[in-house]
């Protein structure tokens, strides 16, 4: 076949197939009302986080001593906190930390928020451990799973506190904590998926091609586990956000004056009785809505995936 003919063939054959897959994916989500509701909430937070500087005239650390613990007004749509900082501004800059930027030090930050990075790292370690245990089996499986079981025996909050207490509160360390805490659950999930997938004939086919263990694990098994894994990861981002809130509330979150949602609630809590609940209310609403949004999205997605399996 001539080269020109081949490219022509490629354009005819390949394009529709890919676009169609993308379109089918989107329309699958679109069919589920639950998933759409979740997606709307989550996209809202992503958008405000990305465009934060354009959505407010204030900076997250700008203080106004004349307006402490003010109720919502035209100038401050959600009110101000005890230092007169605009709550809306702090909220959307807080969302950046959670979702789109991970500060390493004063000048350097990585794209992708603390929760996302934490879950991502958890996914990497969890998948590797789960694949190793599930595919190789035997004593490797025993050792890995017993170790992870031991970790799972600790209550989650306690585990977070131990880890943060040990390595100190910083953005990077919270990422580590989220990753470590998430690993056992992800590993278990990947292992159970692997146990099922490794019985399929295409794994036999790869083995009799003499493929390496790593190839089989990452090229043959992992891509087929991605559906449930994506759904699980979304739920985990929700848990991670919740955990961040908890840590912040307990004073183990990002050091002040970072606009950390958890520490905002913790500070604002002192003024609830004083007649200004706003500083505690709005961050709580933010945490709750984002977690609920992610859960709805994950549930909807799972249902749709299960329906057309």
């Amino acid at each position: 076949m001539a080269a020109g003919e081949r490219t022509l063939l490629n354009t005819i054959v390949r394009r529709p197939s890919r676009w169609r897959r993308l379109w089918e994916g989107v329309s699958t989500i679109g069919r589920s009302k639950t998933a759409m509701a979740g997606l709307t909430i989550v996209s809202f937070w992503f958008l405000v986080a990305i465009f934060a500087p354009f959505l407010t005239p204030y900076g997250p650390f700008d203080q106004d001593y004349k307006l402490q613990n003010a109720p919502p007004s035209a100038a401050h749509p959600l009110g101000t906190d005890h230092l007169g900082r605009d709550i809306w501004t702090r909220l959307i800059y807080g969302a950046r930390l959670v979702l789109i930027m991970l500060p390493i030090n004063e000048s350097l930050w990585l794209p992708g928020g603390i929760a996302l990075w934490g879950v991502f790292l958890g996914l990497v370690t969890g998948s590797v451990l789960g694949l190793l245990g599930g595919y190789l089996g035997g004593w490797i499986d025993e050792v890995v799973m017993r170790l992870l079981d031991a970790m799972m025996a600790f209550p989650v909050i306690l585990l977070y506190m131990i880890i943060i207490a040990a390595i100190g509160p910083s953005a990077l360390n919270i990422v580590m904590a989220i990753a470590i805490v998430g690993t056992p659950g992800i590993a278990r999930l990947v292992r159970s998926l692997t146990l099922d997938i490794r019985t399929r004939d295409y794994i036999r086919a790869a083995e009799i091609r003499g493929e390496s263990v790593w190839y089989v694990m990452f090229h043959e098994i992992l891509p087929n586990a991605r559906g449930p894994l994506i759904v699980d990861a979304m739920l985990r981002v929700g848990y991670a956000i919740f955990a961040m809130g908890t840590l912040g509330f307990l004073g183990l979150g990002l050091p002040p004056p970072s606009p950390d949602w958890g520490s905002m609630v913790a500070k604002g809590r002192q003024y609830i009785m004083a007649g200004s609940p706003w500083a505690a209310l709005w961050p709580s609403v933010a945490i709750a809505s984002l977690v609920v949004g992610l859960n709805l999205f994950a549930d909807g997605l799972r249902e749709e995936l299960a329906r057309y399996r």
Partner: protein
Amino acid sequence: MQTRFHPLPPILKVENLSISYATRYGEVEAVRQVSFEVNRATTLGLVGESGCGKTTVAFGILDFLGPNGRIVEGSIKFQGRELVGRSEKELRILRGDQITMVYQDPMQALNPSLTIGEQLAEVLIVHRNIPHAEAWRRSIEMLERVYMPDAPNVMKRYPHQLSGGQQQRVVIAMALLNNPALLIMDEPTTALDVTVEAAVLDLIAELKRDFDTGIIYITHNLGVVARICDQVAVMYAGELVERAPVKELFAHPLHPYTQGLMRCVPKLGITKEESRLYPIRGRVPAPQDRPWGACIFAPRCDYATERCRNERPMLREIALGHSARCFYAGEIDPSAWQPSKEIDLPVVEPRAASGYGTVLEIENLKTYYEQPSRSVLSLFGLGKKQHVKAVDGVSLRVPRGITVGVVGESGCGKSTLAKTIIGLESPTAGVLEFLGFDISMPVTRRDVKLIQELQMVFQNPDSTMNPAYTVGQQIARPLQRFKTVPPHQVYDEVIRLLHAVRLDPSYYDRFPSQLSGGEKQRVGIARAFASRPELVLCDEPVSALDVSVQAAVLNLLLDIQRRYGTTMLFIAHDLSVVRFFSDFVAVMYLGHIVEFGSAEAIYAPPYHPYTEALLSAVPIPDPCATQKRIRLEGNVPSALNPPSGCVFHTRCPRRNLLLDQGKVCEVETPPQRYNTEQHYILCHIPLEELRKMEPVITTL
């Protein structure tokens, strides 16, 4: 049956039944205007390939259509009363305990946490208000009626403690305790071994007579139909295309689809040269793509005319009791049929095994699995180790360029043999040489060059391909890994391979979920042949496919084999397929090859008694063929503790030919008796005795 002067009304009368499902494509008609009757003490076979609406019809009768299915029009009269249009509660009373269904998987009907006895007796206690002791007694009687050995004890066991055949017997017994007027059986023997299937079919035929039950028997297997059905209704793409008494249907199929089906199945009764398979081109249209105002079979029909494409034929009676949905039924002469140009047929020629050199040499191969004993001692590594002797002393020489078929019931060790050769299991002892190299090590430690020469085609089309990659990527992988062609030629090579398995280049970018079972299997074959291997193992490559697709895939394999000169080891349980496909056949039982010889030699006397029993169990798609009736008793013994002497002596129906009822079989390992240089039988009975036996199958 006794003479009657007025015919009894049919048990079930289905007229113009149409069923549709609400799907994401809108309302899709799955069954369209189907009509048939089921009489007392007769079996109606509902035949067709998968997706033809057979099971939907059954579910329509039972009102199991689910929330998205509904009966659009038509009538179902059961015992004289209309079922369509009644409320669920009324239906329950009407059908009451008069219709029972038996599924393919017996475990679907059995509760794993209750004993067989509890489940059987419950039917009588709950539905019939019969006291417990009486119900128990009757349940035992019924188990004995279905030839369950040791019935009183079986009552106390749990379902998982029984074999598949026994479970199916329990389900049938349970169905009969209700004394139903109508029994619907959906592929009840498809999951069973051929010898067990034969026994269950015998049982069904006998029960139909004794209980005057009307049976709807749903199956895709024409052999089974020929053996037990009285009437046959052939379904295609949701329509009933032909309806006739069984002998009439096989003698004079009227509809082109039925004729096509008959040409698709390998037959045992005739010689190998005659048995060519002619697949039906194209595939069954999906329910949403079915034409309305045209003959539904026209796109695949060799006789289609303009009229067929513009007008829908009605089911009309051509001979007495024989109807077909075709404008030209009765005018078409199937014997004058010529395969159309679109189907390529391989040349089937018998090949001799000499002078080509040996590809695979197996000598006294043993593969044992360790089974941990259940005692506490084993926790500390002190327990007595037991071994499952899956392959126990197999010797086989496979010459280049020929196909060796391996047949046997499940558990005979044929799959373990394949796994050992391919390197997924390590042999316990024995010689395993491939192209003169030792390959008795796992695949990971074999040289890439050897791996490349030894590939495999798998059984299950749904799991043979990785759903995450496109067809092209999957075929390209072995090419890249073994560097069969330079990197820049990989794409062209894939296209060439696709072409070789009769798939057009547009399949390159498709995902497995977009392919039908037959297409997936073709891709699996392309992948196996990509590295141009010397030897390809085929593990039941067509057993999960529909007959028309099966024929196409078999022809394809033959064709590719001839083109590449590949040697093949073909593992299957279907003796007719093996015979059609193989030059040599090895019959395995409990880890031993009990008979080996050329395909012709295996299917004619002298037989090993086991081969004889297998052959007499195969359902033959010809109601006029006569078959010896030999049924093996009991189950295949456990390979943990195989019988002494001849492994087959516990079930051998021919032992009595020897002195002392075959005392010697229990003690001594049987000798290999050579009938010809290339045909041996592992049996104590002298060949002269075995030669005297009649052929199992005789056709008129």
